[in-house]
């Protein structure tokens, strides 16, 4: 048994987003959004299509420069990236549209992430056997160890595997905060059901997670809090059941009642 790493006290704010806005020409994709994420919690971000969820993720992770606003991770300003610095400081993300290295064997996808200086730093200056660690990580996200799948080129893997591969590549960085951009999209009910325990296990280990998700039913089972976006604005934030009871949230998803 390995000694569990000392956890920082829960409730400590690990990620702070203040007044974040992004304008593309005349369109305001994200409009003055502020929120905090506490150590060890799972925050769900939901909203109808085009409400700015993925733009928000891109802003937080440094892939986009915000027009105004500030993002800080553990008190350190990470506004506007560059993305490799944001990741270096411990904020890892998956992509909604999977971005594997198609030419490489599946486990080598994870080896690329294990090559990063952050991994070396956290391991105390040594990389260790990257191939073995990559296979451990793939097992953690639900690949069968030593199956033919992990040696296959990523280009021939089915979508469900690629989603897991994205997750493994993030976990390789041993991140402080994990941002999952629609991890469940395009997966079958069975696939989602098998992925939920993976996330629950991360939560037990004290990982802070932001989940952007369309699959509300699955999300609400595991989320501590949710944040609702509509037309780039935050319209609600709180415990899932309470948030979904609010008329303006129902209106955003189902159409406003006043319009009838």
């Amino acid at each position, binding site marked *: 048994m390995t000694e569990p790493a000392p956890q920082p006290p829960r409730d400590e704010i690990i990620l702070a987003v203040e007044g974040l806005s992004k304008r593309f020409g005349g369109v305001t994709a994200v409009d003055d959004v502020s929120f905090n994420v506490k150590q060890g919690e799972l925050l769900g971000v939901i909203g109808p299509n085009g409400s700015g969820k993925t733009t928000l993720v891109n802003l937080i992770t440094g892939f986009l420069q915000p027009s105004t606003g500030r993002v800080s991770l553990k008190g350190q300003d990470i506004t506007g990236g560059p993305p490799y610095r944001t990741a*270096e400081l411990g904020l890892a993300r998956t992509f909604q549209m999977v971005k594997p290295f198609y030419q490489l064997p599946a486990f080598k996808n994870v*080896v690329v992430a294990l090559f990063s200086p952050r991994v070396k730093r956290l391991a105390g200056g040594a990389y260790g056997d990257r191939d073995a660690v990559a296979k451990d990580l793939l097992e953690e996200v639900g690949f069968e160890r030593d199956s033919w799948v992990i040696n296959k080129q990523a280009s021939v893997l089915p979508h469900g595997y690629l989603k897991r591969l994205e997750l493994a590549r993030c976990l390789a960085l041993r991140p402080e905060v994990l941002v999952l951009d629609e991890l469940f999209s395009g997966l079958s009910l069975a696939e989602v059901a098998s992925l939920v325990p993976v996330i629950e296990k991360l939560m037990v280990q004290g990982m802070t997670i932001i989940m952007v998700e369309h699959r509300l039913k699955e999300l609400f089972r595991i989320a501590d809090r949710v944040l609702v976006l509509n037309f780039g604005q935050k319209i609600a934030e709180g415990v899932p059941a309470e948030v979904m009871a609010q008329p303006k949230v129902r209106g955003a998803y189902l159409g406003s009642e006043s319009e009838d």
Partner: protein
Amino acid sequence: MAAQDTSKQVTRRRERLDRGIKVRSEDIYALNSWREALYLLAPRALPVVALVLLQLLAPEYWQRVLISTTVFALLAISWDLAASSGMVCLGQALFFGVGAYLAGIMNHYLGLPPGLTLPLATLGGGVICTVLLLPVLRLRGIYFAMFTLILPLMIERIIEATKVFGGTEGLSGLTPFAHPLWESFLTMAALWVALFGLRRIMASDYGLVLKGINDNDRAVMSAALNIYRYKAQALFLAAATGAFAGAFMTHSYRFVGMPVFALDYSILPIASAAVGGLGTLAGPALGAFILVPLSEMLRGLGGLRIVIYAVLLVVFTVGLPEGVFHYLRRKYTQFERWTEVGK
């Protein structure tokens, strides 16, 4: 009747099986027999031995052709290395020309011998080209390619307009190599160092990062890797390889002038890569060894030479779209046989 015939053909398919050899199974690197050792060594040793023999036995004219072929093979390797790291270059002439001029300048103005100009031009050329392209490393695909295409043409015009380094006349009467044989073996040695050395780098975990950048640079960034640093390093390796080729040619011709920035040096590496097969470094080198001698053989045909050359290029790329190298490797490592489909 005709329909039946085609249906008969469909019931058979080509089956491909990997040749059984222990060393192919990922982790085990124990060679069990001389046969297995030979199986691995032969495809690597054969071209080395063949080239040495050719260089020693061929008539003098073809020895010269072999030298310039080797130089183009180096350029093709340089192109493929950059392309494998997500930087498609249309301007190998930049690397070649900068290396060539550096060697010429150091020899002509400072009187340095080839033993010094070659390594200095290789390193210096690598640094200069990397610095020149540093501002556009953020560009991807065709935008980066356009910039690399323009740079050598621009430098050519600058030399013409400002008349620096001999202007249109160039620098002539440079120090030759001590002995023609020494010249042959130097290019060959450079080719094998570049080919096997860079192939080893690309096979390492560092090479994985470069291939990852080629595949998906945003995913590499999200893995906390500064892609611009890696791209600059890969660019340096590619540029240094090309600059050596240029510096070598300067001393081989005892002359350097504006033609070193000509389009030929940009186009032929790409054609070699297309014929030989991308992404292996060995493929483009093999492509150069097909195209350059072919072009020489056709020299006697006069005006139609280019037409026939072009037709042969089309035949190669249509007939073997994967590239000659990939085709040969597949034939070497796999059995093929026809098997019945279904019952």
